[in-house]
């Protein structure tokens, strides 16, 4: 949007800002405080962590987008940057949009070369004030963070009572700290009120749009899904950005799965020696009848591939949660990407193909986590829940999760002792029902259920073979089995718009940016249809949607157009209908990028990067 229009537009509850700090200095709690305060004021907001692969001392940022319209995608246009890290002053100052603001610690002079005359510098002597008011280096550093939160409260018109309430909650167990935190908030707040024209045009105003919502990251919600699905065995090897998933699972289990009297725990978590072992534990547990899962990321998927093939061929239910990060190799562990789409779809050597679920936000992560276990047991195969760092580690506003107590898990075709007793002979891999799914038995249940599970060639009777026909029979059934899951995985999310002739097709966390881009395009006269793939193998609706549009823009976050390739391989759609829109630098996708790419391809001039309000006349808006 042009600067002039931005100046004129009502920016209340519609802006983005970010806070640049040094990691390991405790700024996360101050940033969380700010984010939560906005949320509690009833205003839709999203928080993104942009952090280094490091423990202490490197630059880190927290980005908050406030959107009264509920848009959740990352925006790279910052109206305000809080620059608390001198090491990134130059970069932070350069990133403020013209007409925007830079809040910095004025205890020390700002480097003159960095100054810009098209933005407003708001200097607050945070360091100086905290040195004066607090004792001890650590406390001073921590309170400086709280003090910038106070300054923001004044500048953005945050509700101080909300902030005080949160501080009280946070330090309920350590009441001594409440006073100092109040004090720090006031230091920043009072200084800003006294020296600046508060609030700024970018400001907050209480709404009522978040009361049915929560702030949650997708690793937490996926972990909760595992708990609600009845998973009892979790195995893992720590890896960014999936680690917090197992941390959350453990926390929830300690709370919900521990007998308050005996202390006995109905879960088992194995921190394995590597991802190979983690996968093995999951496969072993699945074989023995427990619902088991492992959270990991791309490098872990590479290591687990051997066991994934075994689980596919020996037909062992197992759930793999892939929180994607930037690859290849070690890549950028703390940046987001959708680079594992192709890898998980056919993970392992030989002919393999897997059921994959692609959530777009933490709400879907929860529900799909539950579904993953049902699918794994119904189809007796590995199931992948593929999210990414953006979903997994960032703070999303999602509708409160609810649970239907009538839910009964689908444990699949498992023969119990009585059933085994009745049958004459049990053959593990026989297609008794003609649906490609054989019957399973669990160890220890009945002598008749015993069979020899193996990753080597086997017959439908479960015996070893090197015979071409016997081998092929099982492989063909497996093919039918996995393909039949296409109608059982979550169907694609589709939104059709009046008059649309082209379509945006996407996957996972690109969802927010793509739907916002669709709004941007429509507000400027280009309605587009929308489809987001949510499950693999692809439902027939996917092919039908692609065929119904001459031009499908396939929007995804990887270099090699992995979703597009998968669509081409699996649906045999005419390649001319698919056009890639790719962004893979490691940041969550923005609507402006998607709209810009589409507009360029269509030969349109779409300069606006925000949705034009419907009621507003375009001409009249420009002063």
């Amino acid at each position: 949007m042009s600067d002039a229009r931005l100046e004129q537009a009502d920016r209340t509850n519609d802006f983005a800002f970010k806070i640049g700090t040094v990691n390991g200095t405790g700024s996360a709690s101050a940033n969380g405080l700010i984010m939560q305060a906005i949320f509690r004021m009833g205003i839709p907001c999203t928080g993104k962590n942009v952090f280094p692969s490091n423990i202490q001392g490197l630059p880190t940022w927290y980005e908050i987008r406030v959107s009264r319209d509920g848009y959740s995608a990352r925006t790279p246009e910052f109206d305000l940057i809080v620059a608390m890290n001198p090491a990134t002053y130059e970069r932070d100052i350069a990133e403020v949009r013209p007409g925007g603001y830079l809040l910095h610690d004025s205890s020390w002079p700002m480097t003159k070369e960095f100054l810009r005359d098209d933005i407003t510098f708001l200097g607050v002597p945070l360091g100086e004030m905290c040195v004066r008011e607090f004792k001890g280096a650590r406390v001073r550093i921590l309170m400086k963070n709280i003090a910038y939160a106070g300054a923001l409260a004044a500048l953005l018109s945050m509700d101080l009572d909300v902030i005080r309430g949160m501080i009280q909650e946070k330090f309920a167990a350590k009441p001594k700290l409440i006073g100092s935190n109040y004090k720090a908030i006031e230091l920043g707040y009072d200084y800003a009120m006294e020296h600046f024209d508060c609030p700024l045009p970018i400001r907050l105003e209480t709404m009522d749009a978040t009361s049915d919502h929560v702030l949650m990251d997708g690793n937490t919600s996926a972990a909760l899904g595992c708990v609600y699905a009845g998973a009892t065995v979790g195995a893992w090897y720590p890896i960014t950005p999936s680690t917090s998933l197992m941390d959350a699972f453990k926390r929830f289990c300690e709370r919900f799965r521990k007998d308050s009297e005996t202390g006995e725990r109905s879960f088992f978590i194995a921190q394995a020696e590597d991802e190979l072992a983690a996968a093995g534990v999951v496969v072993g547990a699945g074989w023995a009848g427990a619902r088991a899962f492992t959270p990991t990321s791309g490098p872990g998927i590479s290591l687990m591939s051997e066991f994934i093939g075994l689980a596919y061929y020996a037909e062992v239910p197992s759930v793999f949660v892939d929180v994607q990060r930037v690859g290849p190799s070690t890549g950028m562990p703390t940046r987001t990407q959708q680079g594992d789409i192709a890898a998980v779809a056919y993970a392992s050597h030989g002919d393999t193909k897997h059921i994959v679920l692609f959530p777009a936000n933490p709400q879907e992560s929860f529900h799909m986590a539950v579904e993953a276990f049902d699918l794994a047991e119904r189809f007796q195969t590995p199931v992948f829940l593929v999210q990414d760092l953006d979903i997994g580690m960032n703070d999303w506003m999602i509708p409160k999760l609810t649970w239907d107590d009538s839910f009964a898990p689908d444990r699949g075709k498992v023969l119990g002792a009585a059933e085994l007793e009745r049958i004459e002979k049990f053959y593990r891999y026989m297609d008794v029902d003609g649906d490609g799914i054989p019957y399973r038995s669990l160890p220890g249940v009945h002598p008749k259920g015993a069979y020899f599970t193996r990753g080597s060639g086997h017959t439908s009777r479960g015996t070893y073979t090197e015979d071409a026909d016997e081998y092929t029979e099982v492989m063909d059934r497996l093919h039918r089995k996995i393909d039949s899951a296409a109608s059982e995985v979550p169907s694609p999310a589709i939104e059709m718009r009046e008059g649309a002739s082209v379509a945006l097709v996407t996957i996972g966390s690109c969802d927010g940016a793509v739907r916002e881009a669709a709004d941007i395009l429509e507000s400027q006269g280009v309605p587009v249809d929308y489809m987001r793939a949510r499950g693999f193998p692809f439902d027939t609706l996917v092919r039908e949607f692609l065929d119904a549009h001459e031009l499908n823009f396939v929007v995804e976050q990887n270099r090699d157009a992995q979703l597009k390739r998968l669509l081409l391989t699996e649906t045999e759609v005419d390649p001319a209908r698919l056009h890639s829109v790719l962004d893979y630098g490691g940041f969550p996708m923005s609507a402006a990028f998607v709209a810009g790419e589409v507009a360029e391809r269509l030969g349109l001039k779409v300069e606006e990067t925000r949705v034009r309000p419907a009621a507003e006349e375009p001409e009249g808006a420009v002063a």
Partner: protein
Amino acid sequence: MTYIPKPAVRHPGLGANELGLHLRDYEGTISTLCAGCGHDSVTAAIIQAFYELSIPPHRIAKMSGIGCSAKTPAYFVDEAHGFNGVHGRMPALATGANAANKDLYYIGISGDGDSLSIGLGQFCHAIRRNVNMLYVLENNGVYGLTKGQFSASADVGSRSKRGVPNKSEPIDPVALALTLGATFVARGFSGDKQQLLPLLKAGLMHKGFAFLDVISPCVTFNDHVGSTKSYLYTRHHGHELVPVDFVPIRSEISASYEKGSRTSITMHDGSMVRFRKVPEDYDPTDRLSAYEHYRSLQNRGEVVTGLLYLDPGGEDMHDDNATTSTPLAEMAYEDLCPGSEQMDALMEEFR
């Protein structure tokens, strides 16, 4: 594997065990290993051990990786579930299966390639985790299926079939198990069933990680002059440190108590291991003493066998985890799902 059905012949002179089952009921399919393979003798001893312990066949879980050793679970206890997984990763499968159902008898059969090369890490970590299982390493110092390459347990100077000497230091699984904290460490010889049987039985009844290294000569690739894992070499250099008997709790009253028994150790379930003729300065329940003794005999070029170390403490990974008494795989879903009320309450904490 065989394509010939095994004849249903009952061994003469062997009656039914406490479950009314015969030795035949603990057998598997016909072995496809080479004639004279040490592994087949181990298999025979395993069959005997399960039979004598009267363990219900379907309560046994047979785990293995890849290699000649990994094939052997098919050759014993047909009515047990078996899992022949991937190379060197049997410990992870066993850990997971045991996590899900701790009430089964887990026996893992591995080899020196499977345990000491590709699966060395998994082997070590299964010990650390103290998985309740008997881990049998059929140790022949050679890769059989791929035709005779040295394994990591081959001794320095040991010669291959073509006469090439091994120059790399061996990894000694017994020393490793002792240092990593295995709660039961033993070594047997496939050519000595009399010694092997009580070791297998004690290992199966031991609660925690029981490690049993079995020198099991490869008749095809490593049973020649110059090999240190041959029948002849093992017979000449074998040193049974302490002869042991295993006395199951059920038969204790009727068991004959041999003269000269020096140490009796009661296992977690009340059964006993009797050490006979224990050397004066050796305490099989003291890890350091066991290690020193083992090393000193080994330095004299002896292949030390017997039950070398035993911690009868009777704890395993589930005790560390405080896992509920019902196996996790058998828990009712209602007892695992926190339900809607908890969910609603939880959501308020994310506001």
